[in-house]
Every structure is written in C-alpha cells, then in structure tokens.
C-alpha cells in the first residue's frame, strides 16, 4: 500500500478572470518510507501540493488517499487531528513561535500528542542543538532555527515529514547541515519525507524525484544512487 495516492487532484484559486489553476488533474503514488523530492520552479504548484498532502488546505477536486484513508473527505476536526498526530512540517521561514524558547517550541508540539519534555529534549539533541535549548528564536541563527523547526516536527514521531524548501533561506553550509539532519532521520527512523525544492542539485539526494510544472506532474523518476548531502553543491 502506498503512503499517498493522488487521484485527479486539482486546486484552483480565485475565480473568473483571476482564476489560477495551481494543480491540474494530478495523479501520483508515493510509496512508504521514501525520501521524495518535489522539484519545480516558483509557481509550479509545489507548495500547494504539499498543503494538500498535509491537510493544510482542501483540494478543489480529486482525492488523496493516505494509506487507504481518504483524507479529502475528512472533517475539519479530523484534518486537525491528522496534522497533529501524523504529519511533521518543516517550513522555509521556520515559523517558530517567537515567545517560546527552542525547547518550549518543541514541547508545544510534543505535549499535544502526550509525549514528555524528555522527548522534546531528545529531538533537539538529535538535530545537534543540545546547548541552545533555552535560546529564543530571536537569539538563534537561521540554520539553528531551522533545526529547531525540524526537531519540532520529528519530536512527535510523525509518519511523514513534509518539508517546504527548508534550505531556501539558508546559506550553503547551513543548508547542507539541515539536509544531513533530515537524511539521518530518514535513515534512522524510517520516516517518509516529502521535500520541496527548486534546486536540481538537492533533488539528487532523494530516492524519488517528482517534477512539477504549471500544476502538472511532468515526471516521476527514481534515483538509482541517491547522493549524500555533502556530495551536492549549489
């Protein structure tokens, strides 16, 4: 059984003359336990696709099956529950809560699913931030903030990590560091990862590369030998 199965998925914004078709009749299957990259230029519908997969938005038409569950038929409450327990999000702009420190940001997420503060701390150790746990987002560098964001996403042990250009706002070295963390999580915990990027180079670290253009799937290819983050350059 696939992790996700998308059938005739479409998403439109606006109406009339200002209608934008962000996704057009997308059919896609994403298997379990893979590191998948969604590759596309700006405006190709990558983030829209990710939002649909994460129950962050509803499609205009079509169906998304998570396993065999139709998440497009979920009620608002079920969607919230799905995001809380199943999905871990990593955003390009980190989106940490500025009023909470690193540990508290992670705890905010773990507490909701009934995990202990130790789980939150463990996640921060895993992303290499054990010495910065009491720092507030304003006191952390971009890379550190992104690692807190990853810790927040993985601490609740989600089935899927949805990453929306997490290296987009980072310099090369920090970006590599973030990719290594994600790869390590994928390897050690077997978490399925969906990674959005516009970088052909970053796509080389993935198991599967889904190419998107103007809201349509152009190709789905498998990398025979995915590269390690240290092997890529952009």
């Amino acid at each position, binding site marked *: 059984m696939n992790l996700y199965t998308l059938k005739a998925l479409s998403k439109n914004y606006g109406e009339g003359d200002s209608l934008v078709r962000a996704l057009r009749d997308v059919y896609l299957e994403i298997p379990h336990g893979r590191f998948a990259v969604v590759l596309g230029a700006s405006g190709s519908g990558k983030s829209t696709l990710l939002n649909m997969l994460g129950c962050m*938005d509803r499609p205009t038409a079509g169906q998304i099956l998570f396993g065999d569950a139709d998440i497009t038929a979920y009620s608002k409450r079920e969607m919230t529950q799905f995001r809380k327990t199943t999905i871990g999000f990593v955003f390009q702009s980190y989106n940490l809560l500025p009023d909470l420190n690193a540990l508290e940001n992670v705890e905010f997420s773990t507490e909701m699913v009934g995990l202990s503060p130790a789980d939150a701390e463990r996640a921060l150790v895993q992303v290499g931030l054990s010495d910065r746990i009491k720092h507030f987002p304003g006191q952390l560098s971009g890379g550190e903030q992104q690692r807190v964001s990853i810790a927040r996403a993985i601490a609740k042990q989600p089935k899927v990590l949805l990453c929306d250009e997490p290296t987009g706002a980072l310099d090369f070295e920090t970006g590599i560091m973030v990719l290594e963390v994600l790869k390590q999580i994928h390897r050690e915990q077997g978490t399925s990862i969906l990674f959005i990027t516009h970088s052909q180079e970053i796509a080389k670290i993935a198991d599967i590369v889904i190419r998107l253009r103007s809201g349509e799937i152009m190709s789905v290819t498998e990398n025979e030998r995915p590269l390690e983050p240290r092997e890529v350059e952009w």
Partner: protein
Amino acid sequence: MNKSIFRLIFRKMRHNLPQLIGMTLLVIVGAAFFVTLYTIYLSYDRQANHLFETQGYADVTYYGSFDSNDLAVVAQKEGIRQARGRNVRDIRDGDITLRAVGLTDDINTPYLYEGVLPEDSTQCALLSKHARARGIGLGDILRLEGRRLKVCGLVASPEYVYMVQNERAMMAQPERFGVVFVNESFFEEGYGEIVALGDIGKDVAEDLGVTIGAVKTVMQSDQLNKVLFREDLKQIRTFAYVFPLIFALLIIMIVYVMIKRTISMEGRQIGVYKALGVTDARLLLIYITQSAFMAIVGGLLGCVVASLLCDTIIGFFSSMFEVPGLAFTFYPTLWGSVILVCILICSFTAIISVRGVFMPMPAELMRSRMPSGGKQILMERATFLWRRISFNTRYALKSTLRNKGRFVAVLLGMCGSCALLTFALGFFNSAEYTQNSYFDDFVHYDALIELSPMPLEMEHPVEQHLDESSRALVLPAVIREKEYPLFVVQDSFDMLQIDTWRTKDGLIITEYLAQQWKVSEGDSLMIGDTEVRVSGVFKQSFGLSLYTSYDYASEVLSDFKPFYNVIFARDTDVGELKTLSREQGFEYATQEDDKRSFASVMESLNTLIWFMLACAVILGLTVLYTVGLMNLSAREYEYMFMGVMGYPIKSIMSAHIKETVMQLVLALPAGFVLGYGILNVVKTAFSGDSFVLSAAIYPESYVYAGIIVIVMAGLIALVSRFRIVRLDIVEGLKVRSE
C-alpha cells in the same frame, strides 16, 4: 491542560504589556466606580434598615390632638404591636429652629453616640449633627422656652437619617435646625402624635386615623425622611450604573480592536498553530485568556480600590445622611458579580474578534498577505485643493482614514472621554441653571411665612410690616396615593412665575407631574374622591406643587373654607421678620434658606460629579494611550522606513500630530453631542416629586471639556514622539524581514 499553551499565553501577555495595562486600568476604574457607589448604596440601605429596625422606626404615625383614650384605641387595634403618644414642637430661637421631640419607649428611639438618654425634665439628648455644627457637647446647657436643659446625650435618629425639616426645606442646615429629645414631661397633657409599630395596611391605618380624629396618617414608607433618603440612594445607584456602562462600551471597543489587530498581525502564526494541530478551542483559549486575565486582575483591583475609596466617599455623604455605624462593608456577591461581568464582557468581545480565524485553512493563513490596496479618499477628488496641500498633510489625511478599525477606536476613545467630561461639567451647569431658573426667574418673593389657619378676611398682624404680600392656603392633596402641597392662591397672586389666571377654572400643575400622571391641559385628575380639571401646565424645578384659586377650590372641594395659612412676602426686612416671628409666634423661611437647602443637596451630588470627572480624565488618558499605542505599534515599520528614507523625526511627528488634529476635529463635536445626550438621560434619574433637574451645558463647559481632551491627546502625542525617536531602524527592518 497543555502547559506550553499557558506559557505561550503569558509570554504573549508580556509582549502586549503596555496595552494590557491600559485596558486593565480601564477595567479598574470602571469596576472601582461601580463597586464604590454600589457598596455605598448597599451599606446605607442595609445600615439604615438596621437602624429603623433596632430603634423601632414607627410603622405608622398619626398627627393631630389625642388623649389616652385615642392611644388605647390604636394600641388595641389588631396588627398593632405597640403604640405611644408623644409631642413634637418647633421652638424658634432667632435663626435656629429646635424641634423638641418627646421620648417614647421602644418606638423612634434615638441611637446613642455618647452619654445617656434624658431621665428627667432637666435633661435632653441632642441630634449629633446639630451639636457638631454648633459645637455643643455633653454637659452644655440648652435654653428652650426659658427652661434650662442639660445635654446628656448625643444621638442619631431613625426619623432624621435625612435631615429634613419639612416639605419645603428638603435638607435643613444642621447649624440652623436641630432635634432635641426631651422627657415627655417637658410638654403639657395630651399628645400631638401617636406613633405605632405593627403590621398594618395603609387602608386600615387610615381608617383607624379617621376613628381617632387624626389630621394626618403617615405610613413609615411615606415619611418624608424615608422618601428622600430612598430617592437619594436611587440616584447613587443610577450613577453607579451609568458611568461604568460607558467604560464597558469603551473596553469592548478597545479589546475588539486590539485582538483584531493582533490576529491580523499574527495571521501566519495562527496558521502555524493550526498546522501543528492546535484545535479551534485551544486557539480561542490563546486569545481569550489575555482578556479574561485582564478582566480578573482589573475587576479585582477595582474592588480593592473601591474598598479604599468607600470610607472617604461615605465621609462626603455624611453631610447628607446620618446613619450611625456606617463604614466600608465587604460584599462578596457584589465583588464576585463585578469580576464575573468584567470577565464576560472581555471574553465575549474576544470571542467575537477571534471568530474570524476559525474558518480559514492553515495554508490560507500562512500565505503571504497581499499589501492592502490603497484607496482614494474623498478629498482627493477635489484635485484643485488636494494638489495645493503639502505631501506631509496629504500623507496624514490618508493615514487617518486608512485603517477603519483603528480610526474608529481613536475616534471613539476621544469622543467617549469628551462625552464624559461634557456630561460631568454639564451636571454642574445643570444644577446651577436649575437653581438660577428657580430662584431668579420663578420665585418672586423673599420670605414665606407659615401661620395657623386664619379666615381670609382677617388680617394677620405681620402683614402691617410687609410692603408686598399675598395670602394663600396650603392643603395636602392626595393624588394617586401620594401627597402633594396644593396652594390655593388669590386672583392677584404674582409671587411665582405662574399663569395665575389659569387657576380660576382648575388646577395648574408642573410639567414633571403632568408627565408622571400622563395628563395635559383640559384633562381631569382625582384629588381623593374629587375630580378636578387641569387648567394649565408650567415649569417648576424645586418643591413641586399644585396651584388653584379660592373660587375653584370652593367650587369643587367639599368642606373648603376660605382660610389662609401662608403669606408670601416681597421686599421684606428679614431681620425684622426674625423679631416678629418671636413676638407673634409664626414660622418663616426666606429664599436664602431655600437656596442653602438646595445647595446642601447639590453639595453631596458634587462629590459624585468630582469623582466622575476624575474617572473621565483617567478614562480619556487610558483610552487615548492604549489606542495611541496600538496605532503606533501598527505604524512602527512605516515610521522606521520613513526614517530609512531620510524623513526627519520632525516631519514624521508633524504628520502624526496632523492625524491627531483631524481625529480631534471629528471626535470633539460628536463627544459634545453624546455628553449632552447622556445628561438628558441621567437627569430623569435625578428628578423626583420634590426636585426636577433641567439639563443645561454652558458654552465654557464645552470649551473646558474640549481643552482637557486636547491636552490629553497632546500628552499622548508626546509619548508617541518619545517612542518614535527611540525606533531602531536597523533592528526594526530585521524584525520585519523575518
């Protein structure tokens, strides 16, 4: 419950601290105002009732001339527990009237502050208020009708909780009127009054009065002392409600605007909460807790402030009421209710403001917002004018109208404080106007002489000493179960500003009474069982009375005798009246006496008005500060960017001040109108059967209210300048870019 959520909430509160403090201050002032006045109202009510009960305030009093048989008849009546006979006599000594009251066991017993109650005819107990006013102490000697009485006790009385001398003098001057409690042996045989305790209906009591030949039967609830006391308590209660109502409206407005603004600024963050799986209920909790917490702290502190203020305010009221043992009382239910209402108001407003974030999906909230589209303002269409004004002014004009919520909030804040100030100052004006219109325009006599009834054709010796006078008969007229003074006047009567000619074929009544009874000229009224015609309506603000002519009274009133018992005197030497009153044994009151009585009543109200003025200023400052702060923090980035572009602080401030001026131009007139409206609503609460307040606001009050609001806005502009100067351009831009 999720610990992190509360941690987040309290950190957010720390972030919004200045605004929250401003709003909490509003809640404190509103709650303190209400709790102070309501506590005073409850305390007076409770303590006075306690006094009435413990001192045996008579349930029914009969006035007339009685003997022991009459007393026995009353005592044996079913429902009467106890009855006593007593005498009451006003003894005039120059300017001072001392009312000698015979002591009666267990009924109308004076409350002892100091000393003992008189045991023989050489001793007396004096009403403490009068003793204080004249510096009389225990052991001093009082001379009454040539007798020397030693003051053995200083007392309060259930009959003089409200220091009322008679129907005309609403509040007697304590230095000129006092009550002396004496042993019954002070008086001759017989009784002038029978006082009784018991459960007896008004009709039964009145029938009993007829049986014993009473001139008048008055139930406890109709005693002037109690009626006026209740009316004043009602006014305090009205004040307690009116002002906090305005505070509540402003709090609702500020909480609404603040949360709306926060939500609009934190839209992305709310999207993140949702993306992480935060439910709507928890989302609501994040935003509602701040308001609820503020309401709890504000409400509680308001109650504490009230407890500190109560004794002082009660001290001010003591010139009006004499209720022993009165001090601040803690009413847990009142405190609880006030805090609950504060929580409900703030929380409900928060819910209304937050509800908009429940529907959108997280992705929608996290999407970058489009810059708000610029709109042309009306003035821009007047291109000729628009082009001629400077860029700075054009920017200020557009900025003022750019954000409707903030614009309305600032406008309402300024308008609200201006309205409260106008109302409070207008209240002073109304009292003065009412006094002037009554004493300068309505009243055309200098003194009112009260006599024993005399036939109209007989001349009273005092009239030989009066330059101008007019006789009249004052009768009690019972209309709709209440008693009013009916003046029967002569055809040539011109001592009051009334249409005397209208009295020929009916009664003329005051506008207030006409409204209360819903009658107008030409309608009829029932005085007891007699139907009378209303032949005119006139305006009178003080001592509401009815007027008719001797001819009409003879025509419609059964057993009417053409007597007179008052003389209105004009151009009279008051000094001579004093001597004559002693020689000829009559009572009199001058216009000055009435003015002083009125001034005493207003003095107590002035305390409330000053309290209200202080609150209005605090309110104005708080609202303007809070809204100004919101406005400023919303514009900080813009100002910082103007700084980056090289715009000097002076120009930024100039635009900021122009905005404030424009808001003031719109808010002040609206505030004046609103203030006048509030005054008109409140004045009805201050009008009763004995006094009608006319709403009037003098032009200088509008000017003062306007100046105070402008000064407050100026202070806030100074604070804003301080903050604008301190803006860190680089840090600010960094924050924004995140």
